[in-house]
């Protein structure tokens, strides 16, 4: 088993702190935006209650909005940026912006790390975050109410637990996904 060069474990936690703030902002914007709005409560939205009120007691603004209207929701735009940052961290963790900011601005002010960490678990966890917010983004584009704030809230919990408690939920998920046969290679004969 070859192990890649270690990284400062405070780097991923620094990045998780910024990510969790962004995700909390995205969740707030999602809650006040089109995702949770009832039809008729949205100012720019033309609503005719007589046509289908009998069929669906609750009318969500997002269901009748156009794809462009869904994509111009501020929460959607913020979440797309977060997803791109996740994607960057998965494809090229060494150049990802928060990691670079940590190395340039934060790490020189800290004592050297007591121990170095394997870079693979945080990278895997960024992939889990990417999957979660991407599901939210796609469901939002398809007009599913509440999908976006629920996805960003779930990702927020994971990022916050990593930042504040050093618990990497995405990494913990690895063994469960592997036991379910979703990741990892099949068992070798022993």
């Amino acid at each position, binding site marked *: *088993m070859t192990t890649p060069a270690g990284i400062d*474990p405070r780097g991923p936690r620094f990045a998780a702190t910024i990510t969790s703030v962004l995700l*909390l902002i995205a*969740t*707030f914007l999602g*809650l*006040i935006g089109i995702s*949770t*709005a009832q039809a008729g409560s949205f100012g720019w939205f033309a609503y005719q209650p007589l046509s289908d009120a009998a069929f669906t007691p609750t009318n969500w603004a997002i269901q009748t909005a156009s794809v462009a209207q869904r994509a111009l929701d501020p929460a959607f735009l913020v979440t797309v940026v977060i997803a791109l940052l996740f994607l960057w961290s998965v494809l090229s963790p060494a150049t990802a912006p928060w990691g670079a900011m940590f190395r340039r601005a934060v790490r020189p002010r800290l004592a050297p790390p007591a*121990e170095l*960490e*394997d870079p*693979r*678990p*945080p990278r*895997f966890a960024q992939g889990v975050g990417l999957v979660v917010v991407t599901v939210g983004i796609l469901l939002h584009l398809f007009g599913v109410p509440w999908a976006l704030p629920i996805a960003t*809230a779930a990702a*927020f*919990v994971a990022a*916050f*637990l990593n930042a*504040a*408690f*050093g*618990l*990497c939920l995405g*990494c*913990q998920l*690895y*063994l*469960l996904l*592997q*036991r379910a*046969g979703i990741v*990892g*290679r*099949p*068992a*070798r004969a*022993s």
Partner: protein
Amino acid sequence: MSPTAALWIAGTLLVVSVAAGVVFRLLDGRRRGGGHLRFDPQHATTALGERVTLVQFSTEMCTRCPQVRRMLSALAADHDGLAHVEVDLTHRADLAARYRVLQTPTTFVVDRSGAVRARFNGVPHRHALSEAIAAV
């Protein structure tokens, strides 16, 4: 939704996350019973201890396994008859199922007959681990 209601929900989310983190901290690394599990020596790549073996389950995607590895190997170096054995579950879902491991790191305290005398999910508390070793 009004901004006030959204702020309440966001605040609740923050409080729930803190509570989840506190619960995780409280449950992590506590000594638990080993049930009736037995550790099969053929699943270890190195020799078991004469008296006690600390079996650590790890994966490649495990942030806290290296610190447990250092802690357990230091313990094994300090005590005669105590060995530290690591089992990599990255490609062995069968072993994870057999030993009922749901998270890494998980540590078993195994006696010379192979019986699992205690288990620790997460990073073991030092005192609890020493007590579990002494109790074998």
